[in-house]
């Protein structure tokens, strides 16, 4: 068994898991954070994306033991006070989800994407950067719209704040 120590959504957590336990299962089963989804067993769909030390990672493709010592943000950590994160707002306003299964991963990927592109995004970049996330419902169009919308608003916010 491996001892797993993480800092998840601002909270220090410690737990035990088999060495082979994937981070996503540790988050869902040990910590009850079921917002992070499992959509495939081939590391392709991106429903499981979380941030590990500030970077978007597929939590189904990392062992919990490997992550031990890291800071993790899951979809639950985006709205700690119940107020939606600007990306969550944008997804809602742009009708960027249907069944919602891919949404946590889409949003966690997009938060990372927007952070890495502080000067804004264009459609081609968003589509390219969503390469690791699969949606079975929306046809992507509204997801791309939502990310552009959020990037616009978050970018403007940043300019205002500066």
């Amino acid at each position, binding site marked *: 068994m491996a001892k797993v120590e993480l800092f998840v959504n601002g909270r220090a957590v410690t737990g035990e898991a088999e060495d082979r336990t994937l981070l996503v299962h540790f988050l869902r089963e040990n910590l009850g954070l079921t917002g992070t989804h499992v959509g495939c067993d081939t590391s392709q769909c991106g429903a499981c*994306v979380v941030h590990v030390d500030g970077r978007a990672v597929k939590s189904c493709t990392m062992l919990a033991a490997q992550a031990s010592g890291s800071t993790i943000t899951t979809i639950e950590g985006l709205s700690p006070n119940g107020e939606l994160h600007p990306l969550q707002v944008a997804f809602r306003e742009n009708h960027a989800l249907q069944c919602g299964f891919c949404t946590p991963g889409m949003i966690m990927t997009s938060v990372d994407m927007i952070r890495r592109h502080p000067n804004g995004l264009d459609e081609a970049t968003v589509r390219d950067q969503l390469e690791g996330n699969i949606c079975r419902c929306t046809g992507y169009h509204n997801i791309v719209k939502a990310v552009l919308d959020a990037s616009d608003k978050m970018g403007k916010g940043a300019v205002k704040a500066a």
Partner: protein
Amino acid sequence: MYETQYHRAASVEEAARLMGEAEDGKFLAGGMTLIPTMKQRLASPSDLIDLRRIEALKGVTVDGRTVRIGAVTTHYDVSTNEELAKICPAITNLAGHIGDPQVRNMGTIGGSIANNDPAADYPSALLALDATIITSQRSLPASDFFIGLFETALQPDEIVVAVEFVAPDKAAYKKFPNPASLYAMAGVFVAKSGDNIRVAVTGAGEGGVFRLKDAEAALAGNFSPSALDSLAVDPDVLLSDMHASADYRANLVKVMAKRAVAEISNRPM
């Protein structure tokens, strides 16, 4: 996934020792190939020895035109290194187009070359750049390091520490990715330093990455895309699978080579 024992090494020496003690161990870097393979039960190492947190294996150093990339440096960190982009944008571009963003955030150069997937991008760059692979035991040129499909010169307890190369005058990498897997169906890296031209091909070779010496010879007299018009790529040494036949790959290799030369020479195809 079958059971395994996870170990986190703090140093290269400790990693080598842990490997020596393991029954059937594997080194783990970013895990972008190994973990999915274990999930499919296609690999079942008794022990995993994690190299990712070893400080000595991290980071990019640029000294004049000499570049050193530590083995556990992620594709993302290579792709966004500004100093490196100034002297060798071909390699930062290559790193920025491996897999998807999540793969680039975890995947490492050392893991990529130690795995030597016939469709991985980095092997072509290192072969074309005449890079030196520094391991825990020795230094060897890329041409001696890459041996065949998923095969390298690494001994079981030998660890890739870094790769080193001198930035060429100019270089370009062009690939034709499979739209689903994003792996190259053919990728060609062309490097030019003075009269020295090296062309390496990934994604297409039956024996993994290889140098395209006919293209190098054709370009020696006339460094322009048209010099490759009459290039005949031998399909007999190329992979043929559900994604592409050998003949199709032969054509892709030629087209990717021409695109790379077009970019470097700034001449139309």
